[in-house]
C-alpha cells in the first residue's frame, strides 16, 4: 500500500491529497457522531457531578463497541456500488 509520492504528477498528487482530506474528514465525523450518540445513550443529564460514574463509564465502553459493530454492518449493507465509491475516498 505504500506510495512513492515524489514520482506522482501534479494532478495525481492533487487527487491524493483530496482523497486523504476526505478520508480524514470522514474519520473525524465518525468519531464526533460516536461521541454524540454514546453521550445521548449513556450520560445522565442532571449534572450533579462533573465525573462519569461507574455505570456511565461501562456504558460508554459498550456503546463504542456496539457503535463500531454497527459501522461494520452498515458498511456491508451499502454494498458493492457504494463500496467502490468509498474505496476512492480511502
Amino acid at each position, binding site marked *: 500500500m505504500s506510495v512513492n509520492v515524489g514520482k506522482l504528477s501534479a494532478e495525481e498528487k*492533487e*487527487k491524493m491529497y*483530496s*482523497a486523504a482530506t*476526505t478520508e480524514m*474528514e*470522514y474519520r473525524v*465525523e*465518525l468519531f464526533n*457522531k460516536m461521541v*454524540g*450518540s454514546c453521550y*445521548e*445513550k*449513556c450520560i445522565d443529564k442532571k449534572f450533579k457531578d462533573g465525573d462519569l460514574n461507574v455505570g456511565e463509564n*461501562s*456504558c460508554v*465502553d*459498550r*456503546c463504542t*463497541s*456496539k*457503535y463500531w*459493530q*454497527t*459501522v461494520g*454492518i*452498515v*458498511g456491508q*449493507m*451499502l454494498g458493492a456500488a*457504494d463500496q467502490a*465509491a*468509498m474505496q*476512492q*475516498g480511502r
Partner: protein
Amino acid sequence: MDPSQLAGIPPEDERKMTAMVESMQVRDSLRMYNSLVEKCFSNCVQSFRRKDLEKDEERCVTKCCEKFLKHSARVSLRFAELNQQTMEQMGAPPS
C-alpha cells in the same frame, strides 16, 4: 448548473469540474454512511449490558439500513421529477 449550458468549455476545465463533482460525491456518500450509522444505531440499540450487539439489535440495524436505502432511492426519483417539472414550468426547454 446544467453542463449543457457550458459552450466551448476547454478540456482542462472540464477535467477540473469532473474532479470537483466526483470528490463531492465521494464526500457526500461518506457523510451519508456516517449519518445512516447514527440513525440506525440510535433507533435500534438501547441496551448496554454487553459489549456485543444482541441478535435482534443486529437484525434491526440491517432492516433499518435496507429500509433507509429504499426510502432514499424513492425520494431521489421524486426529487428528479420535481426538478424536471419546475424547469418545464419556468419555460426552460426540457433537457
